[in-house]
């Protein structure tokens, strides 16, 4: 179990402890943002969408990677937050930062509810409840068309300028910058959060729930709290997707969305926040090019990749890369 902070800080010059996570998060996000801007200067909408989904993958990492709860219903939280933000905006709350708050609250509440339902059991009942919960929310989203627009999607809302200064422009520059800043802040907070005593105890629960119970940990309440935090993160993603795109569709609560987020997490590496970020970016950029030509070739590739990863790199590409780097460094030292 390699802690994310020590892995990332190991190669870099040792940073003072109290800013290490913040510096890491801002460095990673700035670098990724710059690369993205240079590679896709005319497709900022794609980058913005990638960032929104990255929050979903991060939230999934919190419950699956750090707390060991396997779920296929995480998109329900993301989607409900997005719908909440859309409705809030239609109701007159147009300030993007306020809308972000609405998304976080809606996401956290949904996270707590799904935590109560999903983390009650383990193994098969857990998986089934998570799927059923996701499908339940999807069916409701389809039914409650007055709040969700049904299969047409919820549209027609326009957030005002960020902080009253930066208007949302047609090229998506404001959306992109706004999303990047939010990502950096959330990533820094999460890097700190997963190293906190609470975060470490969740990892303990993941590794051996029985032992955790033996040393007096209240497992179920902790998992629910973790779910609440995870829901808040997914809520940020849902809010950003609603604010930036201006449309919320049924896809955002769908089973496919949950399953794809899980695939992205596994490609990157569950149990590593940066792994989740890289997995999300890799999967979506690759999917953007392959999926637009033929969705079925894309499915074949995704499926094949997933099988290969579970066979040969079960801890994800991020871990495989990190251990390869460690080996490389060791071999240089010994020379």
């Amino acid at each position, binding site marked *: 179990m390699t802690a994310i902070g020590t892995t990332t800080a190991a190669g870099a010059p040792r940073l003072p402890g109290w800013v290490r996570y913040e510096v890491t998060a801002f460095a990673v996000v700035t670098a990724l943002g710059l690369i993205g801007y240079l590679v896709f200067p005319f497709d900022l909408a794609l980058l913005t969408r990638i960032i929104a989904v990255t929050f979903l993958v991060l939230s999934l990492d919190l419950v699956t990677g750090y707390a060991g709860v396997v779920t296929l219903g995480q998109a329900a939280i993301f989607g409900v937050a997005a719908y909440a933000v859309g409705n809030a905006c239609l109701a007159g709350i147009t300030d993007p930062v306020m809308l972000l708050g609405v998304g976080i609250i809606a996401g956290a509440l949904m996270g707590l509810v799904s935590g109560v*339902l999903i983390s009650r059991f383990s193994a098969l009942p857990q*998986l089934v409840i998570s799927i*059923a919960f996701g499908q339940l929310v999807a069916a409701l989203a389809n*039914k409650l068309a007055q709040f969700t627009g049904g299969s047409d999607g919820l549209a027609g809302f326009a957030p005002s300028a960020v902080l009253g200064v930066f208007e949302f422009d047609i090229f998506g520059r404001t959306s992109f910058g706004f999303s990047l800043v939010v990502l950096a802040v959330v990533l820094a907070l999460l890097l700190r959060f997963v190293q906190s005593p609470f975060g470490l105890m969740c990892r303990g629960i993941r590794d051996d729930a029985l032992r955790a119970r033996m040393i007096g940990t209240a497992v179920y309440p902790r998992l629910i709290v973790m779910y609440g935090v995870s829901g808040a993160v997914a809520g940020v993603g849902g809010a950003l997707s609603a604010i930036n795109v201006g449309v919320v569709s049924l896809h955002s609560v769908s*089973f496919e969305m949950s399953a794809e987020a899980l695939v992205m997490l596994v490609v990157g590496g*569950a149990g590593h926040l940066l792994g989740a970020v890289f997995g999300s970016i890799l999967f979506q950029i690759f999917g953007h090019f392959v999926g637009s030509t033929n969705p*079925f070739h894309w*499915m074949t590739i995704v499926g094949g990749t*997933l099988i290969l990863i*579970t066979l040969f790199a079960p801890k994800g590409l991020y871990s495989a890369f990190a251990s390869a780097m460690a080996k490389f460094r060791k071999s240089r030292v010994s020379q």
Partner: protein
Amino acid sequence: MITILSIAIDALAFGMVLFIISIGLSVMMGLARVVNLAHGAFAMIGGYIASYMLREAGAGFALSTLVAVLGTIAILMPLEFLLYRRLYRNADAFRQILMTIGLTFFIIGITNTVFGPTSKPIPLPEALSGPLDIGFRMVPAHYVLVIACGAITALGLWFLLDKTQFGTRIRATVDNAAMAESLGIRTEILYAATFALAVGLAAFGGVLGAQLLPIEPYYALRYMVIFLVVVSVGGAGSILGALAASLVLGLASTAGKYMAPEFGDFFFYLTVILVVFIFPHGLLGARK
């Protein structure tokens, strides 16, 4: 009253289809403890083959079904050696889920590349396609076939697992795999045979149930959840449990669609959550 009877008959047929497809998964999960999300994909392969045989090769319904079952087993057995063998009795459910969901995506991609991304109807033979008068209403004649096949499957499996030497070995392995192995039971052969049985039943159910669960490009994803839910609600490895779960869930789904069609699958999944909460080990599953 008529409505209640109508719902009951539709639910029975739907439940039987769920049962035929899911029971293979249930036995497999009871024996090898594999959370197999690709089971729906197996049924889909069966449906695609049957549809091809009926519409392109001009074969009869019975022959097409037989070819579909055997063909699906033949296609998927290599996967047993390559992939599933690594997952048996592996405590890491996460890994099982990932690999089988990957396999589902893979199968969807491949079948649609080979057969084309259209829905694949399975035309019924003359004798089964008409309506049948059962007194108070007309029902599709193939309901009779589906219900009969469901009953035969349940009885046949009960006989296989409870009355034959093969069944005794399976039950011994379910209870204690290490002990069964040391007594000379070739467990890997049992696993392979059960896998073949599960695949065959999935394909059989996929073809028979095509009128109720239409074969289409995303079949494997759309119904994956339902089969898993049946096993979870029924309790892995229990024939009676799977039958009960299929009928309860078939009823929940059908009644929901009759009473409140605009809610879609809402009541179905509500039932699932309630049942799993009250019976986390399944309606008739063993408490471990």
